[in-house]
């Protein structure tokens, strides 16, 4: 087995749900840490005070512009990591922290929460609130193949990760409205219901086969849009679903 990659989790203004999600891989997390990745930085899990050099940095939470330490640590993490991931909806899109108005106990001045791409360049998004354990597992395995694999594995990992990297290029705002703007208004929706099945707060209902978003309920997690098969669909990867799923399963055994 090739040398492991190093992964860290930088915790900004998030609820720790993303960190818990990592652990929700259960024995899968041990497998990842045994064979593929060293966890070099993470709140409560790793006893390291300062942001170290790492291959992949998962950033949880949005960044409060009024919190100097957050801004500095985020910039430092960017400098010190090869791949910076907006891990979860707060980091990618602001999510529920978009609605924060400050005033909370012991940090009343923290009220300017923005997605991390407003502060640094981001390579890859893992949207949703919370993100899915299986999605972060897949990204970790693919990052390993990208950085340590042979040519064939590098190609597969690149193809797999590309849409998640393109999501990072697409911008830092996403909500149920994106289904309206970029799928329905574009004449692309075919009524599969994935968006409604995906939404963590059940803000979407299907009316005569098409999604209807309750915009007051939407927390701006971006899951519905990213999961919709008409927001993006990469045939080269999906046509090999059996092989890729077997490969990931094999890697985790």
């Amino acid at each position: 087995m090739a040398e492991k990659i190093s992964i860290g989790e930088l915790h900004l203004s998030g609820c720790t749900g993303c960190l818990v999600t990592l652990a929700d891989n259960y024995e899968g997390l041990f497998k990842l840490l045994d064979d593929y990745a060293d966890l070099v930085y993470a709140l409560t899990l790793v006893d390291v005070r300062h942001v170290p050099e790492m291959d992949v940095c998962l950033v949880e939470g949005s960044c409060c512009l009024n919190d100097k330490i957050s801004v500095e640590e985020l910039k430092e993490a960017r400098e010190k990591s090869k791949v910076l991931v907006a891990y979860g909806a707060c980091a990618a899109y602001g999510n529920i922290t978009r609605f924060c108005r400050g005033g909370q106990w012991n940090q009343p001045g923290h009220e300017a929460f923005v997605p991390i791409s407003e502060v640094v360049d981001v390579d890859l998004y893992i949207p949703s609130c919370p993100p899915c354990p299986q999605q972060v597992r897949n990204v970790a395995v693919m990052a390993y193949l990208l950085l340590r694999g042979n040519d064939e594995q590098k190609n597969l990992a690149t193809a797999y990760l590309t849409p998640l990297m393109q999501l990072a290029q697409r911008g830092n705002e996403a909500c149920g409205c994106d289904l309206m703007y970029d799928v329905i208004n574009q004449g692309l929706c075919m009524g599969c219901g994935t968006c409604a099945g995906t939404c963590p707060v059940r803000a979407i209902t299907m009316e005569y086969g098409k999604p209807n978003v309750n915009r007051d309920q939407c927390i701006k997690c971006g899951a519905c849009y990213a999961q919709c098969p008409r927001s993006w669909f990469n045939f080269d990867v999906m046509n090999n679903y059996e092989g890729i799923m077997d490969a990931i399963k094999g890697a985790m055994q």
Partner: protein
Amino acid sequence: MDVLGNYKSAISARSTDRDITKKSQDGGIITTLFAYALEEGIIDGAIVAGPGDEPWKPEPMVATTKAELLAAAGTRYNISPNLYLIKEATRSYGLDRVGIVGVPCQIQAVRKAQLYPIGLRDVDDKIALALGIYCMENLSYQALEAIVEDHCNQKMESVKKMDIGKGKFTVYTERGAVSQMPLKLIHKYVQPGCNVCLDYVANLADISSGSVGSPDGWSTVFVRSMKGNAVWDGAMAAGLFETKPMDQVKPGLDLVKKLATEKITKNQKNVDARKTVGLKADGTPKGLRNPYESP
């Protein structure tokens, strides 16, 4: 990839269960396979298009018994957002092994959900059997109503069966009337999202099936994945299907291939044409999104 997708075998088949073929659209492939998979514990429930609150309007439902599968058998030619229940099936219904049926785009959604489980936590390894049905295009409920009530002159509630074949849309009523309209008049009613679909025979399903290629009452079946293969072999060994080799039935695989090619060629043109659909104020082309290129 071939227009028919990857497959291990193509067979013409019909269920040997008359309770099923009485209610099913074609050879009863989907209902029979789900009933078998339930019985064998391969799945503990299947997401199907159940009866809705208006005649011929489907409502996605989780079926856990053969009776429920039978209630959902047959084709309703309008949108049934079956993926809507995919996470719910593992939560409220507590299924560990989920079956799901869908038109090609819906099976694409299933595979995307497995490879990129972005908002569908703990779902990827619970999808135990994805069955696909061929699909040229789908309709909104209102479009189907217009076709049946305005063009075919029948009331939705009096219709016993709807069918597409030999270039015609046909409705059969409870009282024995048969009304038809040419399929080509339906195009203006097709949901626009279908115009960019590059799949006719549910290439990504474990097993996919449709009527095209086989005689009336029979189905053309593609067995595609390892899992599909195991389920098909098991159902065959249990005597659940009578079959004929595909090269011995008429009109045969050539027709399936012809229709698949037509659909994909036409829709690829639509995808390409979207690049230049309008003009910006400065006269340069203003395109629509291509979902196969980037988000």
